[in-house]
């Protein structure tokens, strides 16, 4: 494919401003009620900020609900179920919300005693929500070499936006979509997709992506010589 037909890849970045809802939960029933009642921007915050804010914990609980249920309410089974929820399966926040509700309701039905568990004072679950601000960055790539350079320089927030949040915009992973559709790098795109980003820190993810591209560029050079 000649470069003149290539749609360039624009790197964006995303930052969130966090809002307090004034609502809190001290047990699983109140948590469930909040998950049902509050807007999707709250589901978004509690399922999507954790990895960025607590990325040093990876591969520990990837969302606020799982951390709170496991470490504060001390319900390890339910905590594990919510933690292992693969967000990659879902393309809307509504689907994520419904799945979390389903898991919690099933747990409560299975084990009514879990309703008795209560958070110690000060460790209640505070419901928050987020507004996202998306900024275009100066990084634009037209080919694999440029893409590699950009990837080395963009912030982890940009990587997060293109890898984790892309699903909410209908793309599996913005990087792999572009690699396949614009550069025809289908194998590389597949390798990107095969990675489970939730089991890596964002800095590690950058390193792995970088290494995969460098290997691919080496193959290209070897093939030419």
């Amino acid at each position, binding site marked *: 494919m000649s470069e003149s037909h290539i749609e360039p890849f624009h790197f964006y970045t995303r*930052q969130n*401003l966090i809002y307090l809802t*004034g609502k809190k939960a001290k047990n699983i029933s109140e948590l469930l009620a909040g998950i049902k009642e509050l807007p*999707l921007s709250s589901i978004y915050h509690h399922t999507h900020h954790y990895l960025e804010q607590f990325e*040093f914990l990876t591969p520990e609980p990837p969302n606020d609900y799982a951390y709170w249920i496991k470490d504060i309410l001390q319900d390890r089974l339910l905590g594990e179920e919510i933690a292992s929820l693969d967000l990659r399966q879902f393309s809307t926040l509504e689907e994520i919300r419904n799945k979390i509700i389903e898991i919690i309701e099933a747990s409560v039905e299975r084990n009514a005693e879990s309703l008795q568990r209560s958070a110690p*004072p000060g460790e209640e679950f505070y419901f928050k929500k987020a507004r996202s*601000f998306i*900024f275009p960055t100066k990084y634009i790539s037209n080919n694999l070499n440029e893409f590699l350079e950009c990837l080395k320089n963009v912030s982890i927030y940009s990587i997060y936006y293109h890898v984790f949040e892309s699903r909410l915009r209908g793309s599996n992973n913005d990087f792999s979509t572009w690699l396949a559709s614009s550069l025809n790098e289908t194998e590389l795109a597949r390798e990107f997709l095969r990675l489970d980003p939730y089991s890596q820190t964002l800095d590690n993810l950058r390193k792995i992506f970088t290494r995969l591209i460098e290997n691919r560029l080496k193959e290209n050079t070897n093939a030419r010589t």
Partner: protein
Amino acid sequence: MPELKEYAKYVGSDVLDELELYAAKLKNVTVQNINSTAVGGGVAEILTNMIPLLQELGINVKWDVIKGGEKFFEITKKMHNALHGQEGNFSQEEIDNYLETNESNANQMNLHGDIIYIHDPQPCALIKRKQEVGGKWIWRCHIDFSRPDKLIWKFLKEYVEKYDVSVFSAPSFARELTIPQVLIAPSIDPLSDKNKDLSQETIDAVLERFKLDKNRPIVTQISRFDYLKDPVGVVKAFKQVRKSVDCQLVLAGGEATDDPEGAQVLAEVREVVENDPDIFLLLLPPASNIEINALQRASSVVLQKSLREGFGLTVAEALWKAKPVVASAVGGIPLQVAHKYSGLLTHSIEGTAFAIKQLLQNQPYAKKLGENGREHVRKNFLITRHLRDYMLLFLSLIYPEGDVVHL
């Protein structure tokens, strides 16, 4: 004052590049900050640090201070304590003085800007001029708001709800309000005397000055001598620890000579210390930042066993020095300490003693918690994150619609 580029070694140049991206969207925006004091106190410190950096980013940020008589500041101090949870009855005369002082400041000040950023309760009633001045108005609450006195909150709330947005430091401070409430945690400055890197010689010199043994573990709590910081509980927990581990305790805080309650607390602490040679009560003069920094760095475990806490930035300071922290789950502490990941949260003297023992006896675990804590602070509690949140807050007022804003 440090320049922005000096922070690159701590947060990376990618983070600084992004700050410029956000600032570029605020080039023609004027923000007028108003608080009640230019020096002393946490708010003045935040503004002193943040304003030059926001200006360096090209945002037209200004800072004005309201004027008031002795009576006004007595009333606002009482108001501050009442919002902290102490009972406080306000006479009509006091309320009138508060409102009149705000009114006369509104008359004398040049209230202007696209965004008027009011800090804390003292200038809160300036909002009465909103219609006349125009612009978007922010009320930033820097104080612990978890259990405010009902009457004073009812009075203040009437003004707060006239703002476009309110800002709180911790989730537990959120109130039922008709206006949006944004969460912005405070931050520490890695280049300040309290947090900058120190040589081993400097640390050793401080230990020597206070006659601490650098060869035995040190457990430290940095806080003023105040019931809410539970220094007596700290000493009791330490005495339990020392039954099985040879260690020293440092309780370091500001001198309490001008604070009758502080002197009383100190007397009670001395009583429970019982001349124990391994417990060091250090009364530090103001601006002992290097000493505090050195004591934190020399510690094996840092405590913050508060019964109530605003945000508890001493926790972030200790975590930034990669120290394992044992703290109570109050105020902003749970934001900083994720239990068993970046420290340990405890709820009793016995629990605190057990946690200290665990950390002193399991050094790899203590080290891991400390390292996690430092990374957590690097991402979430350094001044660069604070700058980002301020800029997002300004943008949220300029672009008030939608959960996702494309700029």
